[in-house]
């Protein structure tokens, strides 16, 4: 396989060699269950606790407010289901945005099946949630509310501070999926009164299969797995020590390098956007300013996303598509539909997400390949008269 230029960092990020370095001892020589009393157990426990402190530090939290999980999806599930199931029986209502990652959306739909009423809060054409509309949906019987910190598809950064504040004022637990935001946006839970946050190691140049959750002291959560009472009973099961150590290292590096990474990503993002502007009928989705530093989400009129992704793949560039095609027909992105796009537009989107390791030269080469691919597929398209 030829060397691929990787521009799908929102899907997963490459493992930072420094993170790998930190993990290796826990994959090889060192053994020990963090719950064990002997010295090997103690040393594993120390490694986990050091990681906990690093993750806490990234979020402005205390270490005891951090729970390790298997990743973003599990953190979201523990938050949404856990809050709902620990709420008093008369509270059977939830407020959830229409632009949630599937990890939150499907939990909320699960709650609907269990008899919850869910108020789904829409967005404007940029994918932005209106805090007033969100706040207006909160009720005395609201058990929880949830809104993504920054959208994983179109990259719009939501007004988490206002949303969390509105909930806190009414004593309603508020969860935010910060999987894409962490390491790109300054998150400080001492400033923003969220109840819970979800984050994931592999979006931060850490390992896959390791995630974390911020749980504010005093927030009631019913666990979703039971067992040995690890992680304060919230997440039973022997900890993934190597993964957690990797996540800790990744979180530490993310905090130390945040400003520098964001500046670098923004520069690359703007280069891509400038190139995209020169191609006719290519439009940016998501908010122009309130936007993740690494995200470029484009509608390419007349071109179906999967074919464009595959075409770019053969040219040596990995990017993300915004829709899934199967024999039952395409599944249009719910986020784009919520932003008022037609199904047809929703099938014609591509997500390009840069990372700290991409270079300006890669991005420039990519834009050449991108404009070639778009031109070729448009020649083929019955829906584009160029």
């Amino acid at each position, binding site marked *: 396989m030829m060397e691929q230029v990787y521009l799908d960092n929102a899907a997963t990020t490459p493992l930072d060699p420094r993170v790998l370095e930190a993990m290796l001892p826990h994959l090889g020589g060192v053994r020990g269950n963090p719950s064990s009393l002997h010295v090997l157990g103690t040393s594993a426990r120390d490694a986990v606790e050091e990681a906990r402190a690093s993750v806490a530090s990234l979020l402005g939290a205390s270490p005891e407010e951090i729970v390790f999980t298997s990743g973003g999806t599990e953190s979201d599930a523990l938050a949404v289901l856990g809050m709902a199931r620990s709420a008093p029986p008369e509270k059977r209502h939830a407020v959830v945005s229409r632009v949630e990652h599937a990890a939150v959306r499907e939990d909320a739909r699960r709650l609907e099946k269990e008899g919850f009423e869910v108020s789904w809060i829409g967005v404007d054409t940029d994918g932005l949630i209106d805090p007033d509309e969100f706040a207006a949906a909160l009720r005395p019987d609201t058990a929880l509310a949830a809104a993504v910190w920054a959208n994983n598809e179109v990259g719009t950064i939501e007004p988490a501070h206002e949303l969390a504040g509105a909930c806190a004022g009414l004593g309603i637990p508020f969860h935010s999926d910060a999987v894409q935001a962490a390491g790109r946006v300054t998150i400080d839970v001492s400033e923003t009164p969220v109840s819970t946050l979800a984050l994931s190691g592999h979006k931060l140049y850490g390992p896959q299969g390791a995630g974390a959750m911020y749980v504010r002291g005093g927030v009631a959560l019913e666990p979703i797995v039971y067992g040995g009472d690890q992680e304060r009973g919230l997440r039973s099961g022997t900890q993934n020590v190597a993964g957690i150590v990797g996540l800790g290292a990744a979180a530490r590096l993310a905090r130390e390098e945040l400003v520098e990474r964001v500046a670098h990503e923004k520069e690359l993002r703007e280069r891509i956007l400038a190139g995209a502007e020169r191609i006719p009928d290519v439009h940016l989705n998501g908010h122009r300013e309130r936007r993740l530093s690494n995200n470029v989400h484009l509608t390419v009129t*007349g071109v*179906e996303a*999967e*074919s464009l992704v595959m075409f770019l793949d*053969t040219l040596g560039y990995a990017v993300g598509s915004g*829709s899934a095609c199967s024999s039952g027909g395409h599944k249009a992105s719910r986020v784009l539909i919520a932003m008022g796009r037609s*199904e047809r537009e929703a*099938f014609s989107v591509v997500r390009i997400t840069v990372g700290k390791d991409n270079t300006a030269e890669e991005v420039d080469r990519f834009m050449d390949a991108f404009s070639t691919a778009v031109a070729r597929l448009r020649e083929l398209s*019955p829906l584009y008269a160029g």
Partner: protein
Amino acid sequence: MTDRYTPQVVDHLVRPRNAGEITDPSGRGESGHAACGDIACFTVGISENVLEGVRYQVYGCAACIAAGSALAELVDGKHVIEAARVSKSDVESALGGPLPLGKEHALTLVLDALHKAFEDHWTRTAGEMLLDGEKGPASAGKSVVAAMSGGVDSAVTALLLEEAGYDVATVTFRLHDGEKGGRSCCSPDTVLFARDTAHRMGLAHFTLNLKELFQRRVMQDFVGSYKEGRTPNPCVACNAHVKFQASAFLADELGYHHVATGHYARVEEGPALARPVDESKDQTYVLWPVPRELLARTIFPLGEYRKSEVRAIAEERGLAVAYTPESQDICFIPDGNYRKFVRKKVDAEPGDVVDREGQVLGRHAGVVDFTVGQRRGIGVSAPAPLYVTEVRPRSGQVVVGSKRDLEVREVGVRDLNWFLDPDETARVQVRYNGRPVVCKVEEAGDGEWVAHLDEPVVGVAPGQSAVFYTEDGERVVGGGVVARSSL
């Protein structure tokens, strides 16, 4: 089943063959739907039945683009018969094996677009010719166009002909928009199913769009008949004006000699239309209007078989259609409720229910709701069962009487089609499942013939067919439409 694309798919994606559009094509076809996301278009240039040019466009996933490219490459330069034989599995092979799970629809999509381009080509070629029912001369040869509905009978018909050494091209008619699933590219559809069946047998398949012809010659007459107090038989009208003409048109275009359908009947020297081996499936009653010159080139292979044998053949040869249910209803009224169908098309005016003496017995909501011989739904109570004996559209009257009042001994018949000398007539059948009755016929002038029946029969409805048989009851002498009847 695999989860990734083959190198062939990737190659077709980045180096598509035959991309683009032919300006001024012989035919253009489009398949797909906004709701499904994918759209494929084919344009073809056809000269003397050879595909001189084929171009395609796709908005869709890599599988659709590659399938379109591979299909275009497979059919380019081929005779239309060869091109129409190319199946989904041929395209799949050209792409190096099965497509990833969930991408199989790409094959159906591009094949459908190409076939719609062929269909458009035939429509353009036919023009008014098909609508006016003109026919070209038949050529010689052991070749046949076999009509294919997608059911077991027509599939076995094509199979038997193929096994008998004929060159077989199959054809499905697009007659109306009532087919189930017709609105979505992804759901099963009669034409797609018939094409699949033909391709599985290795046969070429074409579709002819006869919607306009069918509308004009069958549907309008169907609705109009009820309005005029007649009881139409749409299958007869279709056989008279649509099915055989269309098959013959395609045969002429392809230089094929015969046409075939899956009817249970036989063609004997003459040509004469004869009853089939399986008398319980006899369809001669609806085949009387087939023009002589078309009957002369028609083959009904199933006339020599019993229905049970036909199913056994399908089963033995592994045809998926072996277990399809019998179709009984009028094809464009799948729920069988033809009153409701007619009611939607015409304004019904209320009128009187009267007896033979003209005495008003009650009211009805419209003559379209009644047909001669009907017993139910009259809405008048009487000591003995009442039957509709006559429908008078002009005065809006529905005449009712006893069962005896339905008896007739004289039937006036118009629009005759004779295969044999009318003098050979010995019996007449006036209902689909009726019993032939001994009769004598004589010409009454002004295009009408009168059949004098040996015994009274009941329920002879104007608009139905009267079909005349020979002394032995085996062969059809001719037939016509019942215009009137009397005791």
